[in-house]
């Protein structure tokens, strides 16, 4: 898994490339924690180049979402494939997250 981040106004766009699983999820979690630790605490996770995500990935997204909720931060997701959305649905996570179809709409939802 590779992470790359860039700023779009007040929003940090974090692009995830590759696999989010037991091996890599801790790195994603640490990155989200650090972005959400400092104002303006707005992060859009772009999964357009995601290979797959397992429950280890859901766990760090869940914790990041809680962190955001407790600190006045905001988290949104975009770029999810149909298969990835199926996993979010199975996990019951569709309604827990703001999920945008595109990066532009994701950024707009956080501004």
């Amino acid at each position, binding site marked *: 898994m590779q992470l790359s981040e860039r700023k779009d106004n007040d929003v940090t766009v974090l692009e995830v490339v590759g696999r989010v699983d037991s091996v890599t999820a801790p790195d994603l979690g640490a990155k989200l924690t650090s972005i959400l630790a400092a104002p303006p605490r707005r992060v859009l996770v772009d999964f357009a180049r995601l290979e797959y995500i397992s*429950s280890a990935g859901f766990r760090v997204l869940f914790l990041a979402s809680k962190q955001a909720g407790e600190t006045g931060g905001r988290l949104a997701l975009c770029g999810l494939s149909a*298969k990835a959305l199926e996993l979010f649905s199975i996990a019951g996570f569709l309604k827990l997250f703001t999920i945008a179809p595109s990066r532009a709409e994701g950024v707009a939802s956080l501004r």
Partner: protein
Amino acid sequence: MSTVETSILNKIRDLSRIPDLVAQFAEEQGLSDDVVFGINVALDEMLSNIIKYGYTDDAIHEIHLRLTVAGPLLVVEIEDDGQPFDPCAAAPVDVDAPLEERKVGGLGIHIVRALCAEVGYARVDGRNRLVMKMLLNPETKKGSHAIE
């Protein structure tokens, strides 16, 4: 060959070898990206469970896995010498609970059950044997999880 086998050690880092093995097998067998996604997720869930919770000692253990294409099914078999653990008997997860009440434990097994047509478990000669069967053409699966 319609089968591939390997062994990994009970270390989370060793899981990083699995996706490349799956990718190579998928290419040989012409498996779809969606099936590859499912295999990788199912293997990560069950293997990480075994590695994290299966052993009470600090010794090195080997976990064996095998992938087989059998007719309309992809069969994933995992065998380990850890503590007895039947994922089929695990309590269900309430995935409809609101965020503040959600617990993330047990989610992996919940996902595996949803991805698989069948999950079977047996304890044989002091070893756990898990068999997960996935449909190679999931659109034929009844009650699949459509996006709302």
